[in-house]
C-alpha cells in the first residue's frame, strides 16, 4: 500500500446554498488502494462533498484532481466517465429487471440492441476479478439486500469506476452481510481501487478504514491513520468536544407486565401474513429491544399496537385491556405513544409543510374542546422543546421540511416524550443522527424507563441494543426467532437469529 500516491485530490472546495456554507475550503486526499473513511456528524458536509465529487453539485470554488488532472464535472455522467462510482444508501435498481439488465441499463456502448454474448463475458470477467458473486439472470425483486448492494457495486465497477463512494453501506445489512461487504471492499483495494467509506458506526470504521478524515461544520478537521488513533479521539474530533461514549443500562425494579402480546398475526393488503403469531411482553420500567433485518415485520408490529394496522388474530393486552379493535385516538388517549422514523423520516408522524407548533398540535388538538384550535400551549411547548433538544431552526414557525433530518427527528421525539406515555414505542429513533444526539436520545429513553415507562425500542445498531436494553427480541420473517437477555447476548448470536437460524443458547431458555 503506497502511502504517498494521491489518486484523488480535492483542494479548497467550497459550496454554499443561499446563506448556508455547506463546505468551506475542504481538502481531501485519497490514495490508490486505500479505504478512506469519512466521519462527521449530520450536516458536517459529507453528503455535499460527495455530491460534488459525483457531479451532482458543482463547487463554487476549489478544484478536484484525479490522477493529477484537474477535472470539472457538470453532470453525474462526467463523474462516471472520470471513474467515480457512487453507491447510494437507497439502491437505484429496477426491480423487475435481471442483474444483467440492470448492469447494462444506461450504458452507452452497445447502442440500441445489446450484444448479449459480449456482455455476459464482460460480467464473468469482472466477477472473477473482484470475486463478486452475481447471478446475471436473477431478478432484482428476488434478491436479498446484500445481493442488491453487491449488484450496485458491480454496476459501478462495470462502468469503469476505480474510485468508489459507499454512503452508509452497512445500514441495511446484517452483521454477516457486513462481513461479506468488507471482504469485497478489501478485494477492491487489492485491485488498486480507492474506496471512500461513509459511516456512523465507529466499530466498522475502525475495522475497515486505512485512513480517516473527520469533517465538522463543513470543514476538514483532520486526516488520521487508523493505526494511530482510537474511537474516543475520533468522536471528540467529530463533535468538537470531549464525549462520553458509554451507554448506561440503568437497573430498575422489575414491575408488573405493562404490555402483553399474544399470538399476534396480521395480513398485509395482498392478504399475505406478515406477522405470524408473535408472543412477547414488556414490563413497566423495562426496555425491550427489537432487532431484525429491515422489513421483518417491525413496522407492522408498531402499527398494530398503535391501532393503525388491522389485526388478523391475537391479542394486545395493555394494562389488562385488549387494544385490538380500538381506534388510534383511543389508544393514544390510554397513554400509548408510537414514533416510527421511516427512511425518509417524514412518512409518518410529522407534516413536512407545517411548522413545529402545528406538528406538536397533531397529538393534542383532539383533546381540546370546541371548534377552534388553541395554539398557545403548543407555542410554549415548541419553545421548550427547541431549547431542550437543541433543535436548529430559524424559528418555531418555520416549516420543518427545511430542517435537517436530525432536527426533524428531534421534533418528533420531543413531542412523543412530552405526552408522558406509559408505553413508548420507538422505531429507529436515532436513524441518521449524529453521535451526540444519539446519546442524548439514549439518555432520554433511560429517563423514561426510570419513570416506569414500558419501552419497545426498535433499532439497527446491535451494539446499542446490547448496551441499552434489558432484553432483546429478534424477529425474522414475521416471527420471534428469539428473546435474549441483553447482558449475555452477543452480536453473532443476534445476527444468526436475524436470518432465522436458532442458536442453541436461546432454545427454550428465554421462552415466555
Amino acid at each position: 500500500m503506497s502511502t504517498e500516491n494521491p489518486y484523488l485530490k480535492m483542494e479548497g472546495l467550497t459550496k454554499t446554498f443561499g446563506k448556508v456554507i455547506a463546505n468551506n475550503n475542504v481538502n481531501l486526499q485519497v490514495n490508490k488502494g486505500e479505504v478512506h473513511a469519512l466521519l462527521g456528524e449530520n450536516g458536517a458536509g459529507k453528503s455535499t462533498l460527495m455530491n460534488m465529487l459525483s457531479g451532482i453539485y458543482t463547487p463554487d470554488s476549489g478544484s478536484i484532481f484525479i490522477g493529477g488532472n484537474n477535472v470539472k464535472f457538470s453532470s453525474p455522467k462526467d463523474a462516471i466517465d472520470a471513474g467515480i462510482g457512487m453507491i447510494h444508501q437507497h439502491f437505484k435498481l429496477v426491480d423487475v429487471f435481471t442483474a444483467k439488465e440492470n448492469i447494462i441499463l444506461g450504458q452507452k456502448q452497445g447502442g440500441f440492441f445489446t450484444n448479449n454474448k459480449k456482455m455476459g463475458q464482460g460480467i464473468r470477467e469482472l466477477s472473477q476479478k473482484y470475486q463478486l458473486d452475481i447471478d446475471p439472470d436473477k431478478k432484482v425483486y428476488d434478491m436479498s439486500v446484500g445481493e442488491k448492494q453487491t449488484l450496485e457495486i458491480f454496476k459501478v465497477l462495470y462502468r469503469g469506476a476505480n474510485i468508489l463512494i459507499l454512503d452508509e453501506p452497512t445500514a441495511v445489512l446484517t452483521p454477516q452481510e457486513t462481513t461479506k461487504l468488507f471482504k469485497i471492499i478489501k478485494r477492491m483495494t487489492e485491485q488498486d481501487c480507492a474506496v471512500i467509506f461513509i459511516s456512523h458506526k465507529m466499530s466498522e470504521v475502525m475495522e475497515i478504514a486505512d485512513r480517516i478524515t473527520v469533517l465538522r461544520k463543513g470543514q476538514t478537521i483532520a486526516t488520521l491513520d487508523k493505526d494511530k488513533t482510537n474511537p474516543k479521539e475520533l468522536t471528540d474530533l467529530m463533535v468538537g468536544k470531549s464525549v462520553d461514549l458509554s451507554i448506561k443500562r440503568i437497573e430498575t425494579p422489575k414491575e408488573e407486565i405493562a404490555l402483553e402480546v399474544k399470538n399476534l398475526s396480521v395480513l398485509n393488503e395482498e392478504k399475505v401474513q406478515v406477522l405470524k403469531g408473535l408472543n412477547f411482553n414488556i414490563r413497566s420500567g423495562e426496555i425491550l429491544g427489537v432487532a431484525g433485518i429491515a422489513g421483518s415485520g417491525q413496522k407492522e408490529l408498531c402499527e398494530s399496537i398503535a391501532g393503525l394496522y388491522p389485526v388478523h388474530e391475537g391479542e394486545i393486552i395493555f394494562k389488562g385491556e385488549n387494544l385490538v379493535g380500538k381506534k388510534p385516538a383511543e389508544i393514544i388517549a390510554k397513554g400509548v405513544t408510537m414514533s416510527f422514523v421511516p427512511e425518509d423520516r417524514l412518512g409518518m408522524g410529522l407534516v413536512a409543510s407545517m411548522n413545529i407548533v402545528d406538528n406538536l398540535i397533531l397529538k393534542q388538538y383532539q383533546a381540546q374542546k370546541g371548534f377552534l384550535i388553541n395554539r398557545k400551549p403548543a407555542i410554549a411547548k415548541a419553545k421548550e422543546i427547541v431549547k431542550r433538544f437543541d433543535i436548529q431552526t430559524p424559528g418555531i414557525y418555520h416549516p420543518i421540511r427545511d430542517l435537517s433530518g436530525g432536527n426533524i427527528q428531534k421534533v418528533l421525539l420531543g413531542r412523543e416524550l412530552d405526552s408522558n406515555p406509559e408505553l413508548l414505542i420507538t422505531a429507529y429513533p436515532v436513524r441518521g443522527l449524529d453521535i451526540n444526539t444519539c446519546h442524548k436520545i439514549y439518555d432520554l429513553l433511560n429517563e423514561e424507563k426510570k419513570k416506569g415507562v414500558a419501552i419497545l425500542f426498535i433499532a439497527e445498531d446491535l451494539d446499542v441494543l446490547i448496551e441499552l436494553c434489558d432484553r432483546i427480541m429478534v424477529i425474522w420473517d414475521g416471527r420471534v426467532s428469539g428473546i435474549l437477555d441483553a447482558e449475555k447476548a452477543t452480536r453473532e448470536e443476534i445476527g444468526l437469529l436475524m436470518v432465522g437460524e436458532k442458536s442453541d443458547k436461546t432454545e427454550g431458555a428465554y421462552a415466555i
Partner: protein
Amino acid sequence: MLYRIEKRSDISKEKSIGIRALAILLALITSGAFIFLLKLNPIDVYLSMLDGAFGSPYRIRETIITAIPLLITSLGLAIAFKMQFWNIGGEGQILMGAFFASFIALNYPDIPKPILLTLMMIAGILGGGLWALIPAFFKAQWGTNETIVTLMLNYIALKWITFLQYGPWRDPDALGFPKVPNFSPNAILPKVFGVHIGWIIALILVVLVYIFMKHSKKGYEIAVLGESENTARYAGINIKKTILVSIFLSGSIAGLAGMIQASAVSKTLAVSVSGGMGFTAIITTWLAALNPIFILVSSILFAALIRSGSFIQTAFGIPSAAASIIQAMILFFFLGSHFFIKYRITRKTSAKIAQGGE
C-alpha cells in the same frame, strides 16, 4: 444539452417580483405582436383593457360581479385542494346548487323575500354539497380517482340542467323557446352599492374560510390529511369522515355560488349560470396558493382579465377568439413565471476534462 434546470434553493423577494414583472412584460410584448397582426395599436388595446375593467363605476361593478362567483368557488376549491382532493367538479357543484335553489324559487315564488332567499341559500348549499359528496364517498369508500369522478359529474349536472330546460321546466310562455321561467322578484338577491349582495356573502366567506383553514380543528385535520394519509391515521384522524365533511363543505360553497348566480345574475336556472367559473376557479385558487386572502386578489384580477377581454372585443371589433388568445397569453406567461421562481436554468460548462500540468 447545453442548459440544465436546477431547483432554486431559495429566492429573494425582489428577485421573485422581478421575475413576475418580466413575465408580465413579456406577455405584453408577445400579445402586442399578436395585436399588431390584427392591425391595431397594442398600447391602445392595453389601455382600453384597463379602461374596460376599471374605467368607470359601471365597469368596476361589472368586474366585481364577475369576480363574485370566481371568488366563492375558489374558496370552496381551496378546501378540497388543501386535502389534495382534486375537485375539478366546481362546475357541476355550481349547477346543482343553482338547481336546488331554483327548485325552491320556482315552486314557492310568493313567500316573503327574506325567507325565500334563505331557503334558496340553504338549498344551494345542500345541492352543491350533496353533489360533491358523491365523489367524496367513492373516494373514501373505494379509493376511486376523484379527478375523473368530479369531472364526469360536471357533464351529468350540465345535461341534467339542459334536460330541465328543454323538458319539465320549460317555460310555457316562451313560445317553445327552451328556457326555464324567470324567478319571481322575491327570489332575486337585493343590491348594495349597485352590486348584488353576493359580494358581501363572498367577503364573509373569505373570513370564514380563512378561520376554518387556519384555526379550526377540521381545517387542521384537512391539512394533515392532505400532506400524508399515514400521518393522519397515526394521529387518530378519522379519514373517511374528514374527506366527507371537507368535500361537502367544498361543494356546498360552490353550490352557494350557483345559488347566487341563478338568483342575482341569471334570475333563472340556465346552463350558463356556471359560465365556466368552476374551471377558472381552479386557476385562481392555485395562483393564490390556496390562501383565502390571496384568492380574493386573484379572483378580482382574473375577473378584470375576463372583463377587459370582453371589452376590447366590442371596442375594437376583434373576434372573440382573438380576445381569448390575448387573455391566454397573459395567463400563460404569468403561470410560466412560477416555474422560473422555483427553478433556474443554468448554462452547462462543457464536460471536458481539462488537462492540468503534471
